């Protein structure tokens, strides 16, 4: 019933009608009884009643239901008006669709990465441990056990590692990603199995004691065809049998937001999967993520104090292994301090820029609406003269604006929802099981709706003052052209502001693109172009000890047979492959006390075969490459980079032939020095690095580095065949080195792409803004221009009159925007490598871009001004 009152135009209308009719009938009855005949009585009653239609309308207005009704009326009228100017409507809707769409996408990402809680009950009290001043998120397993058992503030502590393994499906071997969690992982996260059961702490009885794995829903769905009988089936991972215990629910993946592993296997089975046995290695700190739920009522400060006291104990008990055992806590979703701050800063920055886009769009539309309102001054004046109220007219104008914003917002939102969905299924780095889960939820829809309404009201409100000031009498008398003044109007200010915002966006995107281009051609210390990497982990098929090196040599020889392969080398982890830091502490030869504090450097460590430098095109500055004769019987040798030589030996020449020591006291002789390079990230400061011969430092994991001279697609198949010739069961994943570097380049690429898109949008808005302003001012002054032309003005004079103002505003806005943009890009420099605002090319580019945008936007109006035919123009009106 209540809704009937709000929306039912016909019902309340009928009700009023009936009541008024009943009044007239009653009056007619009275008159009839006084002697008049019925027809005359009804006529008299109607006359006495007065303006029937007017009273009915007044009654309707007096009722509350009229709010919706007049709104519907306004909406219908607005639709009619908008249909009459389709060009304006389309431009306005598209502008808003783009602006709202951009905001919805950026907010969708922000929402998913920063606002949405983890899919885990009690996610609010889940914290990740970070150690030392570097806030390292990785710890050793022995530390994990001590911290878990000795702390008093966590309900439980869990830990996990991520590894890759070969799944033997009978027909072939596939590489799959495993998460290796502690036994209490599922219990502490509080996630119920979708099928079967999980493993628990009670299952663990020392190394290799739990022959169970848990399957992820998506892997089960994709590779086991939702087969519910899969629980209890035995599968082979790295040739070890495991029983499938259960399947996780579809929403669950990992406390780290982006990782989507295929299997979960208890960490105690680690040595069956990974070549490196680390369960007892207390000093091996670069391994495991550790997190846990705080007990209820415990503050983070109390937990940190508790962890630090355990850390102090461990440091005293194991002085050789433990350093910097002080802890901090962080949210696990973005790997704490490792990824959190830069991602948060960047996404927030992006949100600000997207907000600027929306503001620019509103300024743009506000200008258009103001121009329209000026054009419609006559219509407004007429309506006012006929008795319409100011309120009604303003409401009409706002309805038009909100209608446009709703249509534009809906279009923008549906576009952005499609984009967000696509983003969620996209795997940015082919090698790793990472997704960016940014599916839109109710919050995203709500924010988009609010933005839509607010922007509609915002740009709808721009012409309000102008309309309020209008004097209907003057306008009807003189026409709307009377008040073309030279003063600065709201529209001019809006245009300058809008162009400034657009120039900021264009500047930012240019700086980012230039930074990315530079970082792609920067000094890596190797040449990733033209190289295939073939990843093979020999531990997956059971090689160990001496057979590893022999097998690796056979692989190299086999691949070398392929025609047009220039050179082949082997490295355990290719530089910039994104596997994280792998290093070791080194000491000068004179150091006797090999404590971590006395280390001379902590170089990144690579294990290589001969010819690796040749295949990677890393220049040898002095000395020699490693050779196949550098084996376990020969003296230990290493090739170091220039930075290592400078830091430990003082110079390249004094380094060759010199010695340094490892933690265990092994003396290593430097036989060669190579150029510096990038090893872990392209934004790192120059790091030290050492290259050790694979035969002295065996590693089952190794990448073939294949420099080729032809089509990589076809070559990949031949490499696979060549490896199969040596061992048929060994799975190899082959990627170009540049693809492999995607992970390290991903942040700057993502930044560049998003800034590029925003920059293009900014440019488009600038064009429509200038175009609208120029076209409008020319249409206003076409008559004047015609007269000038008729009395002999030159073309350039006409152009100057017509466009001078637009160009001046453009220059002003661009200048302001450029300065602001250069200031803003200081922030960018933190994310986009080598993004510097002090770059003459960028400056020139921005100026050129804004100038050509101005030219583009004023071209059509200018043509129109020049094409004005004074004869026709003066004949009009």
């Amino acid at each position, binding site marked *: 019933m209540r809704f009937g009152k709000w929306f039912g135009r016909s019902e309340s209308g009928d009700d*009023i009608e009936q009541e*008024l009719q*009943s*009044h007239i009938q*009653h009056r007619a*009855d009275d008159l009839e009884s006084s002697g008049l005949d019925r027809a005359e009585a009804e006529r008299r009653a109607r006359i006495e009643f*007065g303006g029937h239609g007017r009273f009915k309308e007044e*009654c309707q207005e*007096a009722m509350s239901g009229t709010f919706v009704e007049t709104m519907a009326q306004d909406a219908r009228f607005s639709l009619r008006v908008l249909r009459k100017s389709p060009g304006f409507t389309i431009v306005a809707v598209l502008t808003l669709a783009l602006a709202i769409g951009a905001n919805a996408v950026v907010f969708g990402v922000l929402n998913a990465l920063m606002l949405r809680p983890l899919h885990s009950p009690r996610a609010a009290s889940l914290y990740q441990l970070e150690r030392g001043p570097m806030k390292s998120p990785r710890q050793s397993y022995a530390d994990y056990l001590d911290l878990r058992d000795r702390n008093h503030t966590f309900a439980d502590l869990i830990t996990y590692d991520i590894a890759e393994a070969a799944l033997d499906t009978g027909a072939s071997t596939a590489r799959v990603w495993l998460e290796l969690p502690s036994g209490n992982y599922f219990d502490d996260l509080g996630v119920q199995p979708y099928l079967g059961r999980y493993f628990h702490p009670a299952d663990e009885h020392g190394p290799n004691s739990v022959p169970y794995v848990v399957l992820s829903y998506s892997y089960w769905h994709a590779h086991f065809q939702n087969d519910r009988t899969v629980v209890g089936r035995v599968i082979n991972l790295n040739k070890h049998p495991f029983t499938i215990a259960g399947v996780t629910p579809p929403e669950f993946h990992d406390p780290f937001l982006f990782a989507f592993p295929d299997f979960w296997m208890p960490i105690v089975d680690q040595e069956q999967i990974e070549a490196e046995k680390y369960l007892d290695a207390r000093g091996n700190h670069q391994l495991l993520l550790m997190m846990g739920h705080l007990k209820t009522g415990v503050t983070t400060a109390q937990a940190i104090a508790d962890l630090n006291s355990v850390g102090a104990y461990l440091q005293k008990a194991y002085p050789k292994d433990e350093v910097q055992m002080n802890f901090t806590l962080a949210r696990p979703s973005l790997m704490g301090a490792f990824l959190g701050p830069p991602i948060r800063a960047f996404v927030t920055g992006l949100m600000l820029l997207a907000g600027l886009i929306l503001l620019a769009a509103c300024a743009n539309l506000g200008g258009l609406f103001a121009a329209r309102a000026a054009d419609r001054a006559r219509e407004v004046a007429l309506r006012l003269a006929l008795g319409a109220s100011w309120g009604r007219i303003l409401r009409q104008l706002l309805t038009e604006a909100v209608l446009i914003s709703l249509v534009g917002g809906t279009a923008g939102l549906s576009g952005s929802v499609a984009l967000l969905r696509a983003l969620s299924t996209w795997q940015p780095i082919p090698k790793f099981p990472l997704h960016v889960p940014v599916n839109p939820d109710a919050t995203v829809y709500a924010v988009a709706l609010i933005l839509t309404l607010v922007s509609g009201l915002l740009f709808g409100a721009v012409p309000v003052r102008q309309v309020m000031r209008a004097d209907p009498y003057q306008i009807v008398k003189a026409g709307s052209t009377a008040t073309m003044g030279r003063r600065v109007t709201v529209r001019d200010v809006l245009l300058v502001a809008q162009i400034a915002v657009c120039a900021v966006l264009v500047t930012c995107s240019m700086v980012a693109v230039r930074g990315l281009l530079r970082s792609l051609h920067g000094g890596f210390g190797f040449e990733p172009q033209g190289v295939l990497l073939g990843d093979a982990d020999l531990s997956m098929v059971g090689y160990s000890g001496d057979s590893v090196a022999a097998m690796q040599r056979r692989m190299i020889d086999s691949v070398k047979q392929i025609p047009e392969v220039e050179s082949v080398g082997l490295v355990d982890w290719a530089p910039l492959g994104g596997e994280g830091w792998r290093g070791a502490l080194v000491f000068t030869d004179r150091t006797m006390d090999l404590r971590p504090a006395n280390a001379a450097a902590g170089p990144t460590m690579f294990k290589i075969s001969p010819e690796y430098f040749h295949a990677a095109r890393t220049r040898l500055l002095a000395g020699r490459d490693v050779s196949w004769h550098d084996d376990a019987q020969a003296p230990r040798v290493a090739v170091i980079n220039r930075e290592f030589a400078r830091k430990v030996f003082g110079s390249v020449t004094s380094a060759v032939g010199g010695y340094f020591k490892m933690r265990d006291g092994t003396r290593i002789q430097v036989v060669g020095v190579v150029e510096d390079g990038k090893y872990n990230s392209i934004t790192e400061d120059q790091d030290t690095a050492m290259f050790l011969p694979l035969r002295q430092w065996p590693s089952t994991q190794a990448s073939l580095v294949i420099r080729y001279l032809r089509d990589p697609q076809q070559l990949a198949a031949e490499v696979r065949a060549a490896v199969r010739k040596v061992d048929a069961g060994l799975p190899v994943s082959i990627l170009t080195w540049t693809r492999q570097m995607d992970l390290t380049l991903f942040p700057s690429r993502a930044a560049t792409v998003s800034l590029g898109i925003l920059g293009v949008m900014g440019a488009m808005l600038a064009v429509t803004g200038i175009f609208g302003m120029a076209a409008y001012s020319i249409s206003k002054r076409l008559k004047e221009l015609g007269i000038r032309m008729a009395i002999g003005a030159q073309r350039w004079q006409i152009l100057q009159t017509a466009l001078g103002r637009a160009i001046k505003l453009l220059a002003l806005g661009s200048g302001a925007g450029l300065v602001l943009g250069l200031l803003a890009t200081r922030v960018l420099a933190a994310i986009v490598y080598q993004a510097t605002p002090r770059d003459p090319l960028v400056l020139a580019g921005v100026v050129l871009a804004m100038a050509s945008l101005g030219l583009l936007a004023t071209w059509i109006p200018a043509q129109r001004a020049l094409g004005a035919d004074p004869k026709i123009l003066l004949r009009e009106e």
Partner: protein
Amino acid sequence: MIEQGALYPALFRLVRQGLLKASWGISENNRRAKFYELTAAGRKRLREETEGWNRLAAAMGSALAAQPEEV
């Protein structure tokens, strides 16, 4: 002269303000008619307005009845 129809917008306004309650019924000459009655709020408002009017009327009355020397 005030037209009879002018009564209705006023009635609807009072209904919306919750001072009047309206319901359809049958009048003595057997036609459908709308019957209005005061609500509690309506009665209270009427009392206030009546007092206000009486005060004004009394003031006007005493003003009009005043002799020149009393002013």
